[in-house]
């Protein structure tokens, strides 16, 4: 009773604590801001330029350098680069987020079951994880792309058309990036399942699946969130690599990666072809990395405040 007001304020929840720690990271805040700006650019920009603008070719205007008419210049067939970066950005973002969703589902399921059940199940799942982990992901990407190439047609969704290769790329990147998350989740499960609150839950009669998803999993959210955030950055980079090699998104659907690919022969003569998409990729991945770094520190369970 000596310190006034100390009984009145409720204790801070974990989320609030994490938010406070996060706010102290200047770089993470900067990253978050930058990311929001980029997201605004690719979504709001779609209201200014229609998709037809992005894909309209006008060979007479091919290769014009940046001007007031075309702020980012035009490419070989006269398409406006600014509009293409907007729509390409949409694709890259969508690929990044959806691919991470796939790898989250796979990674969490495999890690949780391997960690929880242990024994033979763990052995088999981990052997497979190790085997795929040992193969350089770019090789996997190349092989898997050949496997799926050209099997899915173009489709329309929410008012714009997507090449079928978008789905292929999302699935492939998702299938090749779940391994790290599975290892982390498994390690957490291995340690958490010995704790007393699990024994207590078991005594009360909670079944295996309930234990996994309602008791242990919520306690492993921190590394999952960090891994998911950094995974988006990785997925965007992977999409860029794949499209650069010609295996990712197929034209005329634009993506930052395949814009870079098309720019390769014109390195010297038309630098605006690759400077803009490349810089956008860099800024996006950079902001996500800052954000993920800040999240990692904010959600660290061992932090003091």
């Amino acid at each position: 009773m000596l310190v006034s007001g100390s009984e009145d304020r409720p204790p801070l929840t974990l989320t609030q604590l994490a938010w406070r720690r996060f706010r102290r990271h200047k770089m993470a805040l900067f990253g978050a801001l930058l990311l929001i700006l980029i997201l605004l650019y690719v979504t709001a920009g779609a209201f200014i330029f229609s998709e037809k603008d992005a894909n309209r070719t006008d060979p007479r205007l091919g290769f014009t350098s940046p001007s007031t008419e075309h702020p980012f210049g035009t490419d070989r067939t006269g398409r406006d680069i600014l509009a293409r970066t907007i729509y390409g950005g949409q694709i890259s973002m969508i690929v990044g987020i959806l691919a991470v969703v796939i790898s989250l589902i796979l990674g969490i399921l495999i890690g949780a079951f391997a960690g929880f059940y242990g024994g033979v199940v763990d052995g088999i799942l981990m052997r497979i994880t190790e085997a795929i982990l040992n193969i350089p992901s770019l090789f996997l990407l190349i092989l898997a792309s050949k496997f799926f190439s050209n099997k899915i047609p173009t489709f329309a969704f929410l008012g714009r058309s997507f090449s079928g290769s978008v789905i292929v790329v999302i699935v492939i990147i998702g299938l090749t990036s779940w391994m790290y998350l599975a290892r982390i989740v498994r390690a957490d499960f291995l340690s958490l399942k010995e704790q007393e609150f699990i024994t207590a839950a078991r005594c009360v009669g909670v079944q295996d699946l309930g234990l996994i998803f309602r008791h242990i999993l919520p306690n492993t959210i921190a590394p999952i969130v960090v891994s998911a955030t950094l995974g988006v950055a990785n997925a965007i980079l992977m999409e860029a690599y794949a499209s650069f090699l010609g295996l990712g998104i197929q034209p005329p659907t634009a993506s930052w990666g395949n814009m870079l690919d098309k720019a390769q022969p014109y390195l010297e003569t038309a630098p605006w072809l690759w400077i803009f998409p490349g810089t956008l990729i860099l800024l996006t991945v950079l902001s996500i990395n800052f954000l993920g770094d800040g999240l990692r520190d904010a959600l660290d369970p061992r932090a003091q405040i």
Partner: protein
Amino acid sequence: MTRYIIRRLLQAIPLLLLITFILFILLQSMGDPLAAYSGRHRMRPEDRARLRIELGLDKPIYVRYGVWLKNMATGNWGFSVDTNEPVTEMIGERLPNTLLLMAVTEVVILVFSLVLGIYSALRQYSLMDQTFTALSFIGYSMPIFWLALMLIYFFAVRFKAWGLPYLPTGGVYTLSLVELGEKPSRFLGVTYATIPDLLKHIVLPVIAMSTISIAGYSRYVRSTMLAVINEDYIRTARAKGLSERLILLRHALKNASLPLVTLIGLDLPFLLGGAIVTESIFSWPGMGRLFWNQVSKGDYPVVMAILLIISVAVIIFQLLTDIAYTALDPRIRYD
């Protein structure tokens, strides 16, 4: 220790089999192997069916895998579907070039990560430290081919336009030097014109491949170093009167480099992947570029052989890393 090594090697074999089996299955889906044999004349259906049975393509997949495995183990690596050269020759020509690039890149990564990381740790929060941190984030976020293209654009193309001494855009040696009568020499399988010429050609690819790793690792070294410097045994060494330099080199360095060694050893798959892109951009005649070219052509024997080499290399490197781990930290003992 020897028992540990033997045990690891034995464990590595099923892993290797699993990996190659997965890759084998993936490759089967790359298309009909007989398509490459069609050439200019369309194959008659009877010939196609006959060839399928002759070449054993109608057998179940595990039989085909077994045959492939037996052939690889006995040294019969087959002939390229594309150029009809023996696979061993094709790979043998390219392998030294890739090894050269890899070796130089790894050394550069190791040296620079340690130097930058230690410097940042010692001068924590100074201007240089903040600059390096920001730069490493940027370096870490770049796609490798963008970096490579930028490097080529500035150092090769722009420098030439500005009249500065410029670096070549690709290849291992400058053709003009060869034509002028300098015989290309071979050293351990790498063909080059002169050593300075080789250095000129290798600079940009190495920078492209090492920057991303250096960016990531230097931060790691920095945080490990920061943790080590605050340990009690460093304080004891200072109290005993050892010079800062000696403390750094003999005590701190060993402990800080431990996780780095593990990371670099496990980084090999990433480097090999990066090599594909880098070698393609810089026209470096290595295995990565060979893999990429042959995959587009559906050249199974070469592609599977390269994948086998890579899988073996990765597993061996993991083992070497673990052994190096025990050498650096005597507390770690595997039984």
